[in-house]
């Protein structure tokens, strides 16, 4: 198995990769035309058979999600692409949209056609103005080229595509909160059922997919399932974008078959920061339980990561070397979750607020080892009790860090504060001097 599998990122190094011409040069929009010649049900079946699973974190089979949309119900259907990428460490959708926005648009044409939607939306994180401009330009170009709007490619299918700029709330990456926000309300998760497939945007059947999931579809249509299934593992088929960040020599996105290991990815990325060793890492962003050096050979697919006690999530591999204080890192994440809690449910709203206070005390060396037990107890009272998964994400780094690094927490208490030099972990610290 090849260690890399550049599909979405195959042409990112070309100067005009983001333009319609650049995209078309490599067969862009052929897949859309091919799909529009098929029956919608055949498209759904093909994507279902491919084994493509959601790349946004949960890994739900994409074709199955599409097949939940009731057909022949005489209702408007909608496709909504979740581009509200905001998980700490996750940086795959934004580079993809910068370098190759047309692959998303093509994927959306195919997906909308399959679910019989004539309106599609991209919900884009508000802060990334440069990405918004680029995507908007791509949409404009696609309209001008007859790839969006009425009678696409002369195939008799209509699709209106709208780019919506969010206001930068992490919770709006949760699909139902995203829909509320898209409708103009304050983004807070909705009670399910009804699921979006039955009553989503404006209470109409709606598919919400991650950018990368939809962007993966044109290649599947174009090259077929056999090709797609030649990559990946038994239940995790295909290629995906892994984002490496933190204490790594060459941070960035590496597109590889599912099931690659961190050891292999680190080799490709030039290894951990020079002169340092791996201490801990996240397999899928800050919401997934931490891994340590002992997990270097865990296959990074949905099942492999799960079996090792974490989640594949968004494949955001944040690398931390031995200069990093795990308590400090976890505190920062906890502050993030507190700030991003929408406030709807008690455990998340009050819990993250309390967790920050406890984590701050521990980082400052205040308290006794009994407070560590209290921290875990309270965290467990939050995990799995909240309305959506945000609070579970807040609990993951705390529980996993105490599991692997309890001694380090205790050292803070014994030391009366953080025993680490915070400067040593910064990237501006001279390598090897820590």
């Amino acid at each position, binding site marked *: 198995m090849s260690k890399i599998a550049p599909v979405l990122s195959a042409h990112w190094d070309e100067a005009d990769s983001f333009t319609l011409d650049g995209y078309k040069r490599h067969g862009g929009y052929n897949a859309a035309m091919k799909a529009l010649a098929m029956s919608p049900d055949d498209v759904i079946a093909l994507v279902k058979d491919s084994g493509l699973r959601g790349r946004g974190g949960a890994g739900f089979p994409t074709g199955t999600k599409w097949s939940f949309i009731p057909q022949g119900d005489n209702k408007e259907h909608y496709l909504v692409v979740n581009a509200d990428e905001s998980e700490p460490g996750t940086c795959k959708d934004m580079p993809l949209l910068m370098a190759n926005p047309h692959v998303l648009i093509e994927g959306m044409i195919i997906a909308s056609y399959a679910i019989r939607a004539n309106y599609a939306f991209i919900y884009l994180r508000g802060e990334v103005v440069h990405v918004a401009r680029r995507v908007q330009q791509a949409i404009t170009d696609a309209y001008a080229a007859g790839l969006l709007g009425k009678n696409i490619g002369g195939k008799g299918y209509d699709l209106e595509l709208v780019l919506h700029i969010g206001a930068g*709330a992490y*919770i709006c990456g949760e699909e139902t909160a995203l829909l509320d926000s898209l409708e103009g309300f*304050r983004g*807070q998760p909705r*009670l399910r059922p009804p699921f979006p497939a039955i009553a989503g945007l404006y209470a109409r059947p709606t598919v919400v997919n991650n950018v990368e999931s939809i962007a993966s579809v044109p290649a599947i249509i174009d090259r077929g399932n056999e090709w797609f299934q030649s990559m990946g593992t038994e239940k995790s088929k295909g290629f995906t974008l892994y984002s490496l960040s933190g204490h790594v020599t060459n941070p960035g996105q590496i597109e590889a078959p599912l099931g690659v290991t961190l050891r292999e990815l680190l080799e490709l990325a030039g290894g951990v920061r020079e002169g340092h060793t791996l201490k801990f890492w996240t397999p899928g962003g800050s919401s997934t339980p931490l891994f340590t050096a002992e997990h270097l050979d865990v296959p990074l697919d949905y099942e492999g990561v799960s079996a090792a006690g974490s989640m594949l999530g968004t494949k955001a591999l944040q690398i931390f070397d031995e200069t990093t204080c795990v308590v400090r890192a976890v505190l920062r994440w906890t502050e993030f979750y*507190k*700030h*991003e*809690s*929408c*406030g*709807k*449910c*008690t*455990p998340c*709203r*009050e*819990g*993250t*607020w*309390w967790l920050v*206070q406890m984590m701050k005390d521990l980082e400052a060396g205040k308290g006794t080892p009994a407070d560590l037990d*209290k921290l875990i107890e*309270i965290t*467990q*009272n*939050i995990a*799995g*009790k*909240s*309305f959506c998964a945000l609070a579970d994400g807040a609990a993951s780094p705390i529980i996993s860090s105490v599991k692997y690094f309890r001694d380090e927490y205790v050292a803070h208490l014994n030391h009366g504060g953080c025993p680490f030099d915070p400067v040593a972990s910064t990237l501006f610290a001279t390598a090897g001097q820590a």
Partner: protein
Amino acid sequence: MSPENAVATEVEMITVVIDGFEVTVPKGTLIIRAAEKLGIQIPRFCDHPLLSPAGACRQCLVDVEINGRAFPKPQASCTIPVENGMIVKTQLTSEVADKAQKGIMELLLINHPLDCPVCDKGGECPLQNQAMSNGRPESRYEGVKRTYEKPSAISSQVLLDRERCVLCARCTRFSNEIAGDPFITLNERGALQQVGIYEKDPFLSYFSGNTVQICPVGALTGASYRFRSRPFDLVSTPSACEHCASGCSMRTDVRRGKTLRRLAGEDAEVNEEWNCDKGRWAFKYITNKERVTNPMVRGADGELHEASWPEALAAASAGLKGKRAAVLTGGRSTIEDAYAYAKFARVALKTNDIDFRSRLHSDEEAAFLASIATKLNVSYRDIDSADHVVLVDFEPEDESPIVFLRIYKQVNKRGLKVSTVSPVQSRGSEKLKAELHPTLASISGLTNKSVILVGERASEVIGQFTAVTKLADQSGAKVAWIPRRAGEVGALLAGAIGNLLPGGRPLLDPAARVDIASAWGVESLPATAGKATWEILEAASDGRIDALVVGGVDPLDISSEALGQLLNPSTFVVSLEISHSAITAVADVVLPVAAVSEKSGSYLNWEGRPRTFEKAITDSLTRSDLRILSMLADEMGAPINLPSTAATARELQSIGIWDGASAPKPEVALAPIAQPSGDQAIFHSWRQLLDLGTLQGGEENLAGTARPSEVVISAHRAQTLGVVNGDLVKVSTARGTITAPARIGKISDSDIWIPRNSIGSQCIATLGAASGLVVTVVKA
């Protein structure tokens, strides 16, 4: 939907096991409700049976498995409907659920102040109670609690202490889903999330008090009750609302002889668990300084002097005996009191000149009322199942708010079609998505599942009642008459009107007269039909009537001339009143009567449903009208024998409803509509729920949420006048001028609308009429 709302049709039943006990409930029942059926109380805050599930507080977590498949995490029992094969373990049998609930409770309390000893809710607080039953004994929280400036005024009558709020969203869901007034919402995020308003759209909801009542903590308080009492010092009495014909069940809380608050009572058939702000907060009139406390007799000096009861009764008797007397009763009497007036008029005064309609009225209306009196067959349930509701000269949000909520519920739930025959699209009819019809002529497609709700203002449109009757006869639609006042339906059935005897008996039917004469033990009853209010007043002013018994009437409700007509010095006036008024000012004898909380009795609501209540203020010395009329009749030597409410109710019951032929239906042709030109317009009005009504006196916090006066004009007229929204316009008749800000609304170019009795807009007093008149409209 909750089981209590389940319709009588066949519903699939589901059997589940909760804590080892089987329970069978209708499909769709939530776990938390099914547990209630077994007497298992799962703690909760955001859950409310009449609101959509939120799942926000997470207090009701339980362990659930379905057909052997267990949920990996505890589930919110307020959001999950039961399923066959479901096994639920609550905190009573599951350690996981118990720990989850205790964990949530601890989190809820970390930022909740420990101010229970000074909190209004302390003693009746779901948080306090459930913290004791389902919480940890001690908090492990050691930090500083979140605080906010307090209180923050959501409106003049609803105050918010944000630090007490558990953010359950009951108040916001109520306002949005039930009242249709989404003026409060949750703002900010995370730990700073809070209930708030948008400054430019204040919380002007007629139903805001319900948010205070359903708040599970002390976060929302009513301005007039705040810090006034502890719940355990109050004596609660189930009561009925005296403010309109909706017929809300209420609870009156009294401490040492004084009403401190009133709450909505529970009646699934009528008001469910809601009421309006007027019903909740307008009760200060009972304790106002103008209360009449002792009988008074006008002396030779022309002034009223306090007198003993025997003196006052003797004076009243002397003034009434042998006179051509008539009776005017306001529409606010209980049915028992109205019956006493009706009997007093016929037996003691030997006249049929009695009318409960102290408002605009017509002979056509009297005929219509006589024709429907024995056939009150429409109920709230008919609204629930209606295919089309037609409102005729009736604004439910202003004139019968619970009827509004009931219609709104169906509009929300199943898109019930509503049409309104009205000159203007009101905010209420907008919320009901009602189609606007200038007349009944354009209403079509009614079936026997349709309901026509006609208001008292139909009497202001000549021929309207006839048209309603005809439309109903043609289509099979049901008709209900919904007057504004709580006592009018009862007064109609009690015979407090010139063309009917008690039980809806047509006066002109000799058999009906014989019926009643024998029930009353009198030889005969006066046989000529009685005069209507306007005729009585005219007769009083020109001397054809020389004595009046008046109870609860404000002459300015009737016409601008009414007070002048009463001022005839040769008319002897006996006034039965709770407070000094325009009538007591001209009365020869004033007899104090009990206010509603000081007596027992019943109202008939618009459905004809009895709303019986007991005395809430038990140590009050005031007497109800019927007792006083009974004493007066004794004094006059023509006893009516109604010593108590219970005895009166029994007598009324034994008389029963007339089963003979009903009175003929009205036959009046629609009057042609005037065609104004230029700066002229036909003006229309109705009373808004919160206005200058007598019974709202003394409650400034309530008055603060009244809708401001406005002149509603069409876009065309606005353009002609050169005004935009908010510009002042003048509405004038020969008698006077009302000046108020313009609002461009959906109204015919020839019409305008102003509130009938609001601050700055008192139509009868200022313009000399209540509606229909041609007025001049100019820019101010």
